[in-house]
């Protein structure tokens, strides 16, 4: 048993470890359960769910890129009713801690989703994904618009009351991330998820056309990690009391500690699980060993450490 206190707090939710799945990279947990006990990680952040079942974008939906990949899924999913009926009970049966990610096309859809989740037991927090890049209309990427971001979070906060923590998932594809982050916190977000994928494109030179069926896609993997570290660092500097769930290309314990030092209270693992179904467990073990090796008595002592060093 390690001496390091590995627990973390996001909003008012406590987690025994700071390593989570990233929404959209673990479906609703069933697929990974063959490889690892879902109870052993901090939480399963489920794939962003919408009001209605959704087929998503045409294939090809992915392109591997240097140290990364583009995806263009388009929020395929079962819809909130089937999700609550089937996926939540499964995760509860596995004793997994659950963060439900929601996505909507309108401010009202987010509120409707929050209303349906309000009475569901077993949920630790709600991630409000206002930054999925794979939507037809870039104007619908709420997180690119400070006012739209605020309205979505405000609507969810009013609907859900004060109990469940709200984590707003933001896009790095903006001019002033800190002001958008400040806006959603003012509107009632308890925490921030940084970062969603970065909008990108690959052109297929056989067809001389965009490779992805949806033309553009979200770039993930180690290629975007420095962008994520920067985003976390900037936002933590501006709002040191707001917990951040850091993500973007974390593939080992070192990467996880980097995000924590930048200001993350927890780390989500996405694309790394595609290449290694046991990534969550190996990253969790490596992070714990690293914290211990560096002499940290608790994870909390390491959060935002990179800022403290600067001040000394």
């Amino acid at each position, binding site marked *: 048993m390690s001496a390091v206190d590995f627990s973390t707090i996001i909003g008012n939710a406590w987690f025994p470890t700071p390593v989570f799945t990233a929404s959209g990279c673990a479906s609703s947990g069933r697929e990974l359960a063959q490889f690892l006990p879902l109870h052993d990680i901090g939480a399963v952040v489920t794939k962003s769910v919408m009001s209605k079942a959704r087929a998503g974008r045409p294939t090809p939906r992915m392109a*591997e890129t240097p140290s990364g990949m583009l995806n263009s899924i388009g929020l395929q999913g079962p819809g909130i009713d089937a999700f609550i009926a089937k996926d939540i009970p499964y995760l509860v049966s596995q004793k997994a801690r659950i963060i439900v990610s929601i996505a909507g096309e309108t401010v009202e859809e987010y509120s409707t989703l929050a209303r349906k989740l309000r009475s569901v037991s077993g949920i630790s927090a709600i991630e409000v994904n206002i930054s999925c890049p794979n939507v037809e209309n870039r104007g619908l990427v709420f997180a690119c618009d400070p006012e739209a971001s605020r309205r979505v979070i405000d609507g969810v906060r009013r609907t859900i009351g004060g109990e469940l923590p709200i984590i707003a998932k933001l896009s790095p594809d903006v001019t002033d991330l800190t002001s958008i982050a400040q806006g959603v916190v003012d509107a009632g977000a308890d925490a921030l998820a940084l970062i969603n994928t970065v909008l990108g494109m690959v052109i297929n030179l056989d067809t001389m056309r965009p490779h992805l069926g949806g033309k553009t896609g979200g770039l993930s993997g180690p290629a975007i990690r420095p962008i994520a570290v920067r985003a976390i660092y900037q936002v933590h500097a501006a709002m040191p009391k707001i917990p951040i769930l850091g993500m973007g290309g974390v593939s080992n314990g070192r990467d996880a500690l980097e995000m924590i030092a930048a200001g993350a209270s927890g780390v989500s693992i996405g694309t790394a699980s595609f290449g290694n179904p046991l990534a969550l467990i190996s990253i969790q073990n490596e992070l714990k060993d690293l914290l211990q090796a560096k002499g940290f008595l608790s994870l909390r002592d390491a959060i935002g450490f990179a800022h403290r060093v600067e001040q000394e």
Partner: protein
Amino acid sequence: MAQINRSAQQINATLVGNKRVGQYHQLIINIGDAADHCKPGNFVAINVGGDSSRMILRRAFAISRISSSSTFGGTMELIVAPHGAGSKWLCAQSEGTILDVVAPLGTAFGIPTEPVQVLLVGGGYGSAPLFGLAEVLNARGCRVDMLLGASTAAKIYAPMEGKRAVNSLRIYTEDGTMGQMGRVSEPIKALIEDLNIAVIYSCGPMAMLSAINAITSGTEVVHQCAVEESMACGIGICMTCVLPVNDGAGNVSMLRSCIDGPVMDGSLVEWDSVGRGL
């Protein structure tokens, strides 16, 4: 709901054989007891490029054959075409290399409960898993006939030992360099009638599978096909390898070819919508 990825495990597996066969490589990998869970149709996902590689995704390969060797324990055979950077890396590895393998994955070909007449159709190296399947079908008492097609002779994969379980083997190449000139789908309609075929098993390019389905559509012939869509994870979490599939009651949804496939009922795939949205 059956448990997804049941029997799949991550294995540090030793490459015990790597032999060039025409334009392909025959790789033999020691996967120990996991071999007991592998069935014809299943696939594996292998890390490529080594630890510092910029290739972050596994590569998926159909398992072509499983055997229990007294020297190595359980082994699987893969037939790999060194096309992209990942498959080239894999084909360049020498015997003794430890590979990070996740196996077995995906659905398997269904084996008839009765000894019926079956036709196996392979395109390019898609023929590889059909030889292992032929052995299983042969053991069930099925009469197995096989059609193989490719653009040219060098792309036909038809090992001598693989032909033992096959009653007849016909080869088609588009340039006529081996067997008859033409496409492999051309003789199927006549063969179904001449041989009283009950089940067609197919593996190869999507266009070939679609052409076969156009022939079996509206007939009593069952068409089990192994589909191919580019995938990132192989275990059902990335949602990239989807294709439109009918549930038989008219509801079409985008199913994952890694966990709901690769072997699917060809009559339920909405071939005209593959590559388009719903």
